[in-house]
């Protein structure tokens, strides 16, 4: 392995797309404004020049076209990587993803494969209000046949995207707008990370904190602050929500006896509930010396005002407060 360089999350995603396209002529991209424009967040910048318009295809404003034609191409053996410009607009592709992509292999009696990836940026924090800020991952986790990936670092983004493209199943790959400019060390060469391994992002003994996407970064910041008070939290990032690797989190809770689950999506029906259920149904239950707590988005649409937008989803200070209370037994 060469020495990893520090690059952004957006660059890591782009590098994964480029390397997948270089290795496999079956890989192609389609989406709105991904060509000349380079994507609404610049992720596909330069790929049109490198690979041409047959492999980097700008589509009309039609999410059904993006998802549905990706499925059609995928069953022929191609490996489309589709982009939905904002996760909110995945609502317009739901039928194709939920009724078609997810079930096609099953309903065809195993005769078909749907090796497609659908990339999409989720999340709030850009002042774009209720129809540009959704975090809808829980919907997809609920659908048998789909895999769901939600990377929190540039390293994970590259390795997991390459694994998703190589996978023979439809994968919903959820990026986060606020992570695109964050930096991390990433090897230059092609590598994949398995689609079912969580990672311990920080070691600690007092509390197990399970977080996804941008909340992993906020949890790490909170952990640094809490360490100054002598509170050591262990942070686990599932990285793939489906399939979900629960081994590390169960083991961690057996050690710490306390668990806090943190995500941006609204609490009710959020993915955190699944994690809590898995922990409660595991050997970790006997080791719990406090209720498992969740810290998640409010059950409201994301508002336009920047300050209120921040209040609608967990921030560093909220994590510090919740974690401290849980460790001190003040819940």
């Amino acid at each position, binding site marked *: 392995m060469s020495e990893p360089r520090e690059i952004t999350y957006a660059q890591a995603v782009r590098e994964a797309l480029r390397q997948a396209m270089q290795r496999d002529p079956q890989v192609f991209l389609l989406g*709105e*404004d991904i*060509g*000349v*424009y*380079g994507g*609404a967040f610049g992720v596909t910048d330069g790929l049109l020049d490198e690979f041409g318009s047959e492999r980097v295809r*700008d*589509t*009309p*404003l*039609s*999410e*059904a*076209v993006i998802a549905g034609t990706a499925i059609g191409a995928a069953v022929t053996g191609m490996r489309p990587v589709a982009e939905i410009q904002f996760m*909110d*607009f995945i*609502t*317009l592709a739901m039928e194709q993803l939920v009724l078609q992509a997810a079930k096609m292999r099953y309903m065809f009696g195993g005769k078909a494969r749907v090796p497609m990836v659908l990339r999409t940026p989720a999340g709030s924090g850009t*002042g*774009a*209000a*209720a*129809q*540009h800020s959704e975090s809808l991952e829980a919907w997809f986790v609920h659908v048998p046949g789909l895999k769901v990936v939600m990377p929190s670092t540039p390293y994970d983004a590259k390795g997991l995207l390459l694994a998703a493209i190589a996978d023979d199943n439809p994968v919903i790959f959820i990026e986060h707008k606020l992570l695109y400019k964050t930096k991390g060390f990433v090897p230059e060469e092609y590598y994949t990370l398995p689609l079912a391994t969580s990672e311990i992002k920080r070691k600690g003994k007092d509390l197990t904190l399970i977080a996804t996407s941008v909340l992993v970064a906020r949890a790490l910041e909170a952990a640094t602050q809490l360490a100054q008070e002598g509170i050591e939290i262990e942070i686990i990032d599932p990285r793939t929500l489906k399939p979900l690797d629960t081994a590390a989190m169960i083991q961690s809770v057996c050690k710490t006896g306390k668990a806090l689950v943190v995500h941006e999506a609204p609490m009710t029906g959020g993915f955190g509930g699944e994690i809590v259920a898995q922990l409660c149904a595991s050997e970790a239950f006997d080791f719990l010396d406090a209720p498992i707590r969740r810290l998640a988005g*409010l*059950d*409201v*649409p994301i*508002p*336009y*005002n*920047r*300050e*209120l937008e921040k*209040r*609608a989803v967990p921030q560093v200070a909220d994590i510090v407060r919740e974690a401290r209370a849980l460790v001190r037994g003040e819940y």
Partner: protein
Amino acid sequence: MREKIPPLETLHQMYYYMALSRAIDTRLWQLGRQGKAHFVITPAGHEAAQVGAAMALRQGYDYFVPYYRDMTMCLAAGMTARDMLLHVRGAPEDPSSGGRQMFGHFSRRDLNIVSGSSSVGSQMLHAVGLALAFRNRGEDRVTLTGFGEGATSEGDWHEAMNFAAIHQLRVIFFCENNGYAISVPAHLEIGRVGVADKAAAYGMPGIRVDGNDILAVYETVSAAHAQTRAGGGPILIEAMTYRLLPHSNADDDSKYRASEEVQAARARDPITQFSTWLKDQQLMSDAEQQTMDARITQEVDAATEYAYSRPEPTEELLYQHVYAPGRTA
């Protein structure tokens, strides 16, 4: 020469709304650069099309279901500079969303302006639903829905057109074709025929009009209004126009449009074209124009000062209006 020229008062109103819109838009971009408005989306270049359309309807009776570029249409339908500045400011008094939605989702209940969607095209189905309700209730209200040509790639557009045509509803589908869906040019988004041509497939009239010519748009939409109101079914109008500025303040249009193309469009700026014509025809004097321009400056300044002196919304706003109070099942 035109055969029918609207009354002088109407012509001056047309100029006023177009110039007011441009002045507000200019202010919004300034506020954007100053970091005081984090999202700005422009109607610049579309003013003639939008004013011509809005003024052909009966204000306060007919319904508008605009899209995010229809600020000028909403002004001509009765919204004010203050409404727009409160909206971009995200103030609790914002009549469009009470400070909840990003700029470009215009709405005022008393003016029958229904907030559009961020997801492109969804509002056209709502427009058809409004028209269905009006018909069921025996009202002859006409619903006009605005959208860009980009929206016609969405299934929602075809489904709205189909349903409106089946039931011969009083809907005017008003397409503002500016040639780009953000960066994607028309030939890659709407295919080899124009938007108006597609009306034939639904058995409704499809009319293409020069969206830079306010009087042509006004005449076309007025005639369409009379026809659909009389029970002639829905009508599709495609106003050919051009977006003079980037899609929004998050866009860099130099990536996908040649500056020569933009410059050529600026030379055909619909507002300048109209004011020049008015003066050539001696329908507006320099003094009259200056009076209107001065009034506009004053209105935009006052609106800005007002909107930016309003308090920030409180946390209460977060929880209000998620559900309607009152009757529950």
